[in-house]
């Protein structure tokens, strides 16, 4: 007992030291921001990247009319989740923070740190009704809303190189799984890698599982598994989906060196753009990636389509997977909940929608269509918006839907299944061993 008490003292000093270090770090990167503890301010913590211009603009708009001032802080990309996790239960915690919904906030909900947004929504129903339901639901946990969409949606699409397909005599994107297999055979015979895959990153590999499981079994299988029903992974539908993926791998669809290729260092997008590969399954950001590398290719050479349907499968061919959106969640201990609510209301304002479209993001508010013509690439944005709007199910990426502790073992399992190191039973076992809460 004594040992336990003394250890807690030790731990809290450690946390204080850690938090102290972080404060210095944060003050250094926030532009002239003041501490959240001073009266009359709320702190908004955002994932640091080029999209921050819009977040800053909206916060400036908010500060023009509000007595309580909002201060934006950023944590650079890759370190965001790790640093957020270190400060969220300390006095340095922000009032409002960026997240991916689903598993990225589930541990915080469980630890009773987040404010249910039901009272905000009751006060202003537009805070819910202004957003596409399939997106809004990502931040609903156990029936309670915990987040408001605050950036753009990023569904996963099957991209292709139009001229490569044309040269191989393939007319358009594959509509069914059988079409895709036929295309793979044709392309392989011509010496082209049918599908570019950044296997080194592992999460691009996961996208194939997300879509195949949806098309074969419908969205419920994964939901059941996520809710703790481990037998879902061993079901016949699961076996079917795995055998179809295996069929694609064995047909040589991904070539032989995908484990040495990454999306994040530009390897797999370059394969597609240079015509060495014909397809790539990727989030909608593929367009902006290609656009920054080679605008001419993005405009004329890059084709895109929804994932092929699987005849006889239980999933609706209009179902999507990907990142539904990013969300703002509010901490329970925030001193100015009214100010928090007022700031969240700006997330469906016309200023917000236009600013997001201006930097190439696709917001998921119901008023988005009326501004689509002002977007950087109207046709592409309209295509995506209609897909998202009419999708019966929009499954959040598995690695975001599960809690963070599951990410690494999940990535390892999908990579090893593609390598042939795990067979179907090994994969099923690995998925059953994932922590679900």
């Amino acid at each position, binding site marked *: 007992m004594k040992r336990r008490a003394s*250890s807690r003292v030790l731990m809290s000093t450690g946390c204080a030291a850690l938090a102290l270090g972080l404060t210095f770090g944060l003050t250094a990167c926030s532009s002239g921001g003041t501490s959240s503890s001073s009266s009359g301010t709320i702190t908004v913590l955002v994932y640091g990247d080029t999209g921050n211009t819009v977040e800053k603009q909206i916060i400036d708009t908010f500060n023009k009319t509000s007595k309580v001032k909002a201060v934006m802080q950023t944590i650079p990309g890759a370190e965001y989740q790790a640093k957020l996790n270190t400060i969220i239960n300390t006095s340095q915690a922000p009032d409002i923070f960026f997240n991916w919904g689903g598993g990225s906030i589930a541990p915080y909900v469980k630890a009773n740190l987040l404010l249910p947004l039901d009272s905000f929504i009751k006060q202003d129903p537009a805070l819910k009704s202004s957003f596409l339901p399939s997106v809004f639901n990502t931040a609903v946990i156990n029936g309670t809303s915990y987040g408001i969409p605050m950036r753009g949606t990023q569904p996963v699409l099957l991209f292709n190189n139009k001229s490569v397909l044309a040269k191989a005599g393939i007319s358009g994107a594959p509509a069914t799984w059988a079409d895709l297999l036929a295309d793979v055979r044709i392309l392989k015979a011509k010496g082209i890698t049918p599908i570019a895959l950044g296997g080194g990153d592992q999460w691009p590999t996961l996208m194939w599982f997300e879509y195949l499981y949806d098309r074969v079994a419908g969205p419920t299988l994964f939901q059941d598994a996520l809710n703790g029903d481990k037998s879902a992974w061993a079901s016949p539908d699961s076996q079917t989906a795995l055998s179809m993926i295996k069929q694609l791998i064995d047909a040589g669809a991904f070539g032989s*060196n*995908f484990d*040495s290729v990454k999306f994040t*260092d530009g*390897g797999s997008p370059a394969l597609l753009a240079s015509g060495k590969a014909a397809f790539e399954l990727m989030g909608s950001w593929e367009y902006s990636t290609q656009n920054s590398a080679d605008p001419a290719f993005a405009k004329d050479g890059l084709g895109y389509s929804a994932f092929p349907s699987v005849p006889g499968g239980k999933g609706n061919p209009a179902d999507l997977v990907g990142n539904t959106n990013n969300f703002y969640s509010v901490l329970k201990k925030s001193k100015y909940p009214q100010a928090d609510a007022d700031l969240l209301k700006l997330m469906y304002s016309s200023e917000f929608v236009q600013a997001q479209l201006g930097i190439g993001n696709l917001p998921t508010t119901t008023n988005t269509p009326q501004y689509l013509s002002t977007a950087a690439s109207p046709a592409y944005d309209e295509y995506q918006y209609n897909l998202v709007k009419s999708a019966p199910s929009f499954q959040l990426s598995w690695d975001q839907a599960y809690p963070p*502790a599951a990410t*690494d073992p999940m990535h390892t399992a999908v*990579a090893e299944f593609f390598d042939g190191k795990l067979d179907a039973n090994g994969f099923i076992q690995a998925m059953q061993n994932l922590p679900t809460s």
Partner: protein
Amino acid sequence: MSALSIATRTGRARARRSGAGATRPGIAWAAPATLFFLLFAIVPLVMVLVLSFTNWNGLSSPQFNGFANFSKLLDDPVMRQSIGLTLLLTALGVLTQTPISLLLGVWAAGPQRNRAVLSAVFFIPLLLSATAVSVVWRAILDPNFGLPAQMHWLFGNGNLLGSQSGSIGVLTFVGLWQYAPMHALIYQGGARAIPEVLYQAAAIDGAGRFRQFFHITLPQLRTTMVTSVILMVVGGLTTFDTVLILTQGGPGTDTTVTAYYMYEQAFQSFNYGEASAIALVLVVVATLVSLIVVRLSGYGSMRSEMEGL
């Protein structure tokens, strides 16, 4: 004989005289460094020790779970594999870096005319961060657009990072490329300190270059070599940044070394308790390995190389 003993006696006397006026520095002088060491080395170590017996996700307060983390690690194939991999990478690092840096260092210690320019070129990797080096080599080894795409006779299909042996080879090679210059620098300093008279005497006795190298340079560099090997071992056991950028522990878990596994558990999975247990295991393994190196090399009872001079 008598001349030599007189020389040592006067030397000893001089040393005593110069030290007589100065007092030994008191404990106060050591206080700042001790405080820093306590705060940033001992305190975290103790905290890790405590945390390793808990279950903590960083949100709620840690729950004691006794030896659960350790028994879990004992059954964890990834953990067991990671220790083997760490030792393997360390051994490969020592075996590849030592000969190359030894030759480079001894060569750079010589009087050649182009030595300074070439040495400067060789030492460039030393100036780059491990992260930058890893990013560059990833690009060079890209299977579709890098060297392997042009050199199929050497790299096959270029899937270097897709197999365990390939990934370990790449990690070893990049480590060699990056760290050999530093060890060459150490050997250069060691080689410069070898008295010229030894070579002159050997030349008179008719010893050629190779005999001089094996019978004078190598034995004279013995302590330098021990220093360099210990640095390599410590660096090898804590290899992290190259793994993070080049392989991310993959393919699968084939290059998940202990330090990287600890990072995954702590900062991706938020299992701080288990990560602390891994850290503790790494501390124990590293301590054992350095003890073995010290014992085998006779570092503790190091003799001078100047005997007989």
